[in-house]
């Protein structure tokens, strides 16, 4: 067999199959192996809202896209080079995402009559046999049959055997991209611990897939994707929600606090709860409340008790927390509020991504109750940004919003994780004893306008807090008109002051002045960076700035923006951050919106930039 080895800079693979086909697992194994090999990697899982939507149908298709390369990759790839289609529905649902000329690996038994019908192909229509796939290279193999054959003598039931067929495909891909099986073999040992028969069976199938690649004639070439020139360091692969969870633990450790995590399950935020629940040996208290209101109120109670209270949800659950958010703001207690955004409005698109809760974070409560808002821009950035959220919360005695989204939360990338000792210190100012005052005055402020954290158990600091307007300094209930205005302004100023402690806004890519500034926030980072990098290479006068601090905004942002002729604000919503920019800086910032529950492709950004350049 002739084996050609083609070198590739980046490759995007889309695994698509039925919800029960284990595509998420396949994808993450392939990711881990490539990451460990040294590629830069970015992933994007995309699954249906139903637990297991009807087998064989379009609604039941579960996808996992990954982009890996020997160069930096910032997105899971606009379009796929390779599409793995485990059945007809998967092919139908995913074909649009494949590049013209791309490769399709199909599982033949997923294209039988029943599957074709379930996928909505009309009578006798079959994409494998008609010419509809002419623009692609199709590699057919009967994965189901091959897997069954491979495990025929194990005595396992067909149902059980079929569960391993994803491992066959994985083996094939390892062969194609010239990767070792070790990571996945190790994974079997942990996952099936104590079940040697399962370890053996999966090992057998994975290896069979690998050798199938090697021996079958359908492959004409293997590919080589060399390690990426990642900066020196030790790396791991990390998902956004995971990074968020361990960021919280890191923050409380560095602040010498205990973590209280009050949450009510909701997609796509629940995984943070699941992750934290695994780490009780860090003293983490996870509290699954009866609802979102109870969750935030419990977290506020814990913060009053001296813990770092954290609460998490997604859009609809965050909407329920509005009243308590205003309460936390007027109490001036630390609180971290995580919103892993999903498609809205209302229940919306629970498993799809969107950035449409920014206005809710900024304004979604009664009265004047400004709250700092920060947003991570990649999966690993969740670590840094949640750490910042926790820092701001305790150092400035305020609730802080952390706006992640489904795309970041479930995506993954290599992460050059820090050492504990290198994390910036978090300064907590808990009072340990009563002062000289006869009566403790809980709302006395320091030069940053921050009050102290006085925690029950300390003699001499007994005090009462509440949601009624407070007299300055004493915190006693006050209906005095002038005092109210003073307190509203003090609280607002305290939050505004945070801009003194955050870094100036930088230009990510490009010159610091020019024709177009692509100004993004949150998960559009990768698409913007890829697009602007390529445009700059092509000589276009465009730059990228990406905002992580949405309230207060970096002090120099207005100045930075003013140095560009045009400002383009891409968002996965109907235009929210752009409102803020227009209101604040009175520049005619141009909204660029996609509201499809899926991220921008870098191509879309590129085209838009070129369009506005005229």
């Amino acid at each position: 067999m002739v084996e050609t080895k083609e070198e590739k800079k980046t490759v995007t693979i889309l695994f698509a199959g039925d919800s029960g086909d284990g595509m998420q697992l396949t994808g993450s194994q392939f990711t881990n192996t490539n990451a460990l090999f040294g590629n830069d990697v970015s992933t994007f899982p995309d699954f249906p809202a139903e637990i297991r939507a009807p087998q064989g149908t379009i609604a039941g298709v579960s996808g996992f896209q990954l982009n890996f390369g020997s160069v930096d990759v910032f997105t899971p790839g606009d379009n796929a080079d390779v599409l793995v289609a485990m059945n007809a529905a998967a092919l139908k649902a995913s074909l649009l995402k494949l590049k013209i000329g791309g490769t399709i690996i199909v599982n033949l038994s997923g294209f039988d009559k029943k599957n074709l019908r379930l996928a909505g192909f009309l009578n006798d229509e079959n994409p494998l046999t008609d010419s509809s796939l002419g623009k692609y290279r199709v590699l057919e193999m009967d994965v189901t049959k091959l897997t069954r054959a491979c495990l025929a003598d194990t005595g396992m039931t067909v149902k059980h055997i079929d569960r391993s067929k994803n491992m066959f495909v994985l083996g094939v891909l390892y062969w194609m991209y010239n990767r070792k099986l070790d990571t996945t073999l190790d994974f079997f040992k942990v996952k099936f611990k104590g079940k040697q028969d399962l370890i053996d069976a999966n090992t057998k199938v994975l290896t069979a897939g690998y050798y199938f690649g090697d021996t079958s004639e359908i492959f004409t070439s293997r590919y080589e994707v060399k390690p990426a020139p990642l900066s020196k360091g030790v790396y791991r692969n990390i998902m956004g929600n995971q990074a968020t969870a361990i960021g919280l633990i890191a923050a409380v450790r560095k602040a010498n606090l205990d973590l209280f995590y009050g949450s009510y399950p909701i997609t796509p935020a629940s995984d943070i709860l699941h992750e934290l629940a695994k780490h009780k040996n860090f003293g983490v208290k996870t509290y699954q409340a009866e609802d979102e209101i109870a969750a935030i109120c419990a977290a506020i109670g814990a913060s009053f008790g001296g813990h770092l209270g954290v609460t998490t949800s997604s859009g609809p659950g965050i909407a329920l927390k509005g009243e308590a958010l205003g309460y936390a703001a007027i109490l001036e207690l630390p609180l971290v509020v995580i919103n892993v955004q999903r498609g809205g409005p209302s229940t919306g698109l629970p498993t799809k991504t969107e950035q449409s809760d920014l206005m809710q974070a900024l304004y979604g409560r009664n009265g004047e109750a400004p709250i700092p808002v920060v947003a991570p821009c990649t999966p690993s950035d969740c670590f840094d940004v949640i750490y910042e959220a926790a820092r701001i919360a305790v150092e400035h005695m305020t609730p802080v919003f952390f706006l992640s989204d489904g795309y970041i939360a479930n995506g993954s990338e290599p992460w050059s994780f820090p050492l504990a000792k290198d994390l910036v210190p978090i300064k907590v100012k808990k009072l340990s004893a009563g002062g000289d005052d006869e009566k403790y005055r809980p709302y006395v402020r320091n030069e940053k306008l921050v009050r102290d954290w006085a925690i029950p158990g300390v003699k001499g600091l007994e005090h009462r807090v509440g949601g009624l307007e407070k007299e300055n300094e004493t915190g006693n209930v006050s209906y005095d008109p002038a005092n109210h205005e003073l307190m509203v302004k003090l609280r607002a100023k305290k939050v505004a002051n945070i801009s003194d402690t955050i870094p100036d806004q930088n230009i990510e890519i490009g010159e610091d002045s020019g024709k177009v500034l692509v100004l993004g926030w949150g998960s559009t980072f990768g698409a913007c960076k890829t697009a602007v990098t390529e445009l700059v290479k092509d000589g276009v006068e465009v730059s990228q700035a990406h905002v992580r601090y949405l309230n207060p905004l970096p002090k120099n942002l207005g100045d930075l923006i003013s140095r560009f002729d045009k400002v383009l604000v891409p968002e996965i919503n109907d235009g929210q951050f752009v409102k803020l920019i227009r209101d604040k800086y009175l520049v005619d910032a141009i909204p660029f919106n996609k509201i499809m529950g899926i991220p921008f492709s870098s191509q879309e950004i590129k085209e838009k930039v070129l369009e506005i350049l005229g």
Partner: protein
Amino acid sequence: MSIKMENAEIKLSGKDFASDQEVKWCPGCGDYSILKQVQSTLADIGVKREDTVFVSGIGCSSRFPYYMNTYGVHSLHGRATALASGLKTARPDLNTWIVTGDGDALSIGGNHLIHLLRRNLNVNILLFNNEIYGLTKGQYSPASPKGTITKSSPMGSLDHSFNPLALCLGADSTFIARSMDRDPKHLRAILAEANNHIGTSMVEIYQNCNVFNDGAFFTFTEKATKGNTTLQLEHGQPLIFGDNRDLGIKLDGFKPVVVALDESTSTDDLWVHDESDQVKAGILTRFFDIPSAGMTLPRPFGVFYKESRSVYEEDVAIQINQAIEIKGEGDLNSLLAGANTWEVI
């Protein structure tokens, strides 16, 4: 692993538990008496002010924490129970009291209440029941009997009212009791018992709102009528009541019956109160509804039911210790590194 609260070194008096804030209830409001009894009970218990927290919701009753010279949280309407659950889970060492009203606890806060009861955190709930929304100037509450005429129900309310203690029992409460504003001694005794109970202690306190629902409980609280209308529950004692203690309650199957204590009926025939009997406690909570042969059943006061069950915040602490025992105290560097790492050189 039971949590011990340290006692104050210097004996404090009730007054020491009063804050410097002016008390702003209407003159004559039943809340005043409850405040006083709580303050003197805390002094009697001997708990430290700095270890004590009062958490309330919103309502007249919920202004309570401002008047206590302890730590205090005036929270949101209906959320005292939710907030206190977080606080107590974080800080099992704090002596935690929840003050709430019939609107606050049973209307908007009903869910958090029943969930707190099932979780059984070691806190004390004082439900000031005045069968009205006081602070919002007089609308009917879920505790107002059907037909109550208020601003929002000028032709009479149409909602069947909750039986608060029956609801709590249904939610697996481990301690339910009833007392009243106008019997200071009884109230202090019940408050002390509530504090002693390890688990969530639910105390319903009949409280007169003399502005919007004056006299709602007068039959039970005023001298003239009280003897024949109230029943004092005491563990191990037969159910006797009446101005001359000449009436008793007997069980006819599952039906409570009022009997006169005379030659034909002795106290030996009477129902003997057993705080640990959940079924009987259920019958006692229903003394509203059950029409007794010819005679109205008296309203019971005292501890209806008490059960020992593990306490949520202790279980949390135990599980954390177990996790540490099994995996060792969490190491941040290992957590950061995760299971699979690689090096780029």
